[in-house]
C-alpha cells in the first residue's frame, strides 16, 4: 500500500477518533502500528540492532506518545506525517537513552516510504510492564481489567468502584505516568 493510500485510509479514521469514536481509533491504531513496526524494525536493523523486540518496545512507546499527543495533530495535515514524526522522535530518543550514538541513522522519509508494513507482533521487552509500576495501585488494576480482560472502561470502573469519568481520567493520568517513566534514562529508573 502506498503512503498516499494509507493516508486516504487513515485520515478519516483518525478524524473520527478525535471526535470520540472508539472503534475508528482502534482501526487507526491497528493500521498505523503495522506500518510503524515495519519502518522501526528496518531503521533499527540499519542502526545495527536487528532485535525485533526492541522495535516492539519503541513501537509501544510511540503508540503511547501518539495517544497522549492527539491534540497536537493539525487536522488539515497528513496524519501519517504526524505519526511518523513522533515515531522518529521516540526512536532517536530511545537510541540516545540506551547509549548508542545516533550517527548516520537513515531516519529520512524515504526509509519510511519504503518500509513494508509488518503485521506480526513480536513480544516486547519488559519496558511497558515495568512502566506500569509507576502507576498507582488502583489505576493499575483498572488498566489490567481493560487491557487483559478486554473489559469496557465502564465495567472496569464498576469493578474497582469508580465512576466511568473518574476511571477515564485515572487511565489518562496513568498513561502519562507511564510515558514519563519510559522517557527517563535507564540510570534514573528505579
Amino acid at each position, binding site marked *: 500500500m502506498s503512503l498516499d493510500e494509507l493516508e486516504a485510509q487513515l485520515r478519516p479514521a483518525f478524524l473520527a*477518533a*478525535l*471526535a*470520540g*469514536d*472508539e*472503534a475508528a*481509533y*482502534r482501526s487507526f*491504531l*491497528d493500521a498505523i*502500528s503495522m506500518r510503524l*513496526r515495519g519502518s522501526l524494525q528496518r531503521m533499527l536493523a540499519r542502526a545495527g540492532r536487528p532485535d525485533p523486540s526492541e522495535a*516492539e518496545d519503541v*513501537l*509501544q512507546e510511540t*503508540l*503511547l*506518545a501518539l*495517544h497522549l*499527543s*492527539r*491534540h*497536537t*495533530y*493539525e*487536522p488539515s*495535515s*497528513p496524519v501519517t*506525517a*504526524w*505519526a*511518523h*514524526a*513522533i515515531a*522518529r*522522535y521516540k526512536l532517536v*530518543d530511545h537510541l540516545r537513552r540506551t547509549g548508542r550514538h545516533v550517527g548516520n541513522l537513515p531516519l529520512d522519509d524515504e526509509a519510511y516510504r519504503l518500509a513494508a508494513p509488518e503485521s506480526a*507482533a513480536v*513480544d*516486547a521487552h519488559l519496558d*511497558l*510492564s515495568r512502566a*506500569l509500576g509507576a502507576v498507582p495501585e488502583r489505576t493499575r488494576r483498572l*488498566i489490567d481489567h*481493560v*487491557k*487483559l480482560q*478486554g473489559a*469496557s*472502561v465502564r465495567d472496569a470502573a464498576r469493578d474497582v468502584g469508580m465512576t466511568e469519568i473518574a476511571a*477515564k481520567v485515572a*487511565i*489518562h493520568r496513568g*498513561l502519562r505516568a507511564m*510515558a514519563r517513566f519510559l*522517557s527517563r534514562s535507564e540510570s534514573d529508573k528505579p
Partner: protein
Amino acid sequence: MKTDELISLLSAGNRQVDTARLRRMTWLAGLAALVLTAAIVVMTIGARRDLSQAMLTLPVIAKFVFGASVAAISLTLFQRSLRPGLPTRRLLPLVAIPIGLVGAWAALTLFQAPPEQRTMLIVGRHWVDCLVYVPLFALCPLAILASLARHGAPVDRGLTSLLAGLASAGLAAVAYALHCPDDTVAFLATWYTAAVLIAAAFATVALPRLLRW
C-alpha cells in the same frame, strides 16, 4: 504487555480531543506574558515620563510594531513547531522580515543624515541598557512559553527553543519600549535586533534540555 493489549487500552481510553486548544493557549500565553512583562518593566525601571506624547511619534511606534511583529511571527511558528510532521523550519526566514524592514529603513535615515550625526544616531545614549534589559525581561515570557511547550509535542526541540526565544524577545522589546528613551530608527535596528538575537541564542542553548518528552 503486548502491543495488541496496549491498543485495546488506548482505544478504550479514547475521548473527544480539541486540536485547536493548543493554538488558543499559545495566543493567550503570549498575551499574558506581554501584560506581565510590561508590568515588570513599569514596576522596576519605570515607563518613560513623556510616554503619552512619545507614543505618537514614528520611531516609538516603530519600536512597538517591531517587537510585536517579531513576537507574532515567532509565536505562530512556535505553535506549529509543537505539532509533529508540519514543516516549520523552512518558514524560519519569515522572522527576518520585520528585522530586514527596520534595517532598510534605518539605512535610509542614516543615508539622509549629515555624516557627523550618523554615529550618534546609531549608538544613542542607552544601548547597554537595551542589550541587558531586553534579554533579561525576555526571561519572563520565556518561562511561560517553555511551560506551554510541554503541553505540545516538540519533535525539533532546537527549533521550538529558538522560536520561544525570538517570541519572548519580541514581547520583551514591546515592554522595554515603554521605558527606552532612544528614539531613532538606527538605534532600533541595531540594538533591538542585537538584543533579540542574544535572547534567542540563550533560549537555543538553555531550553532544549527542558523540552524532552
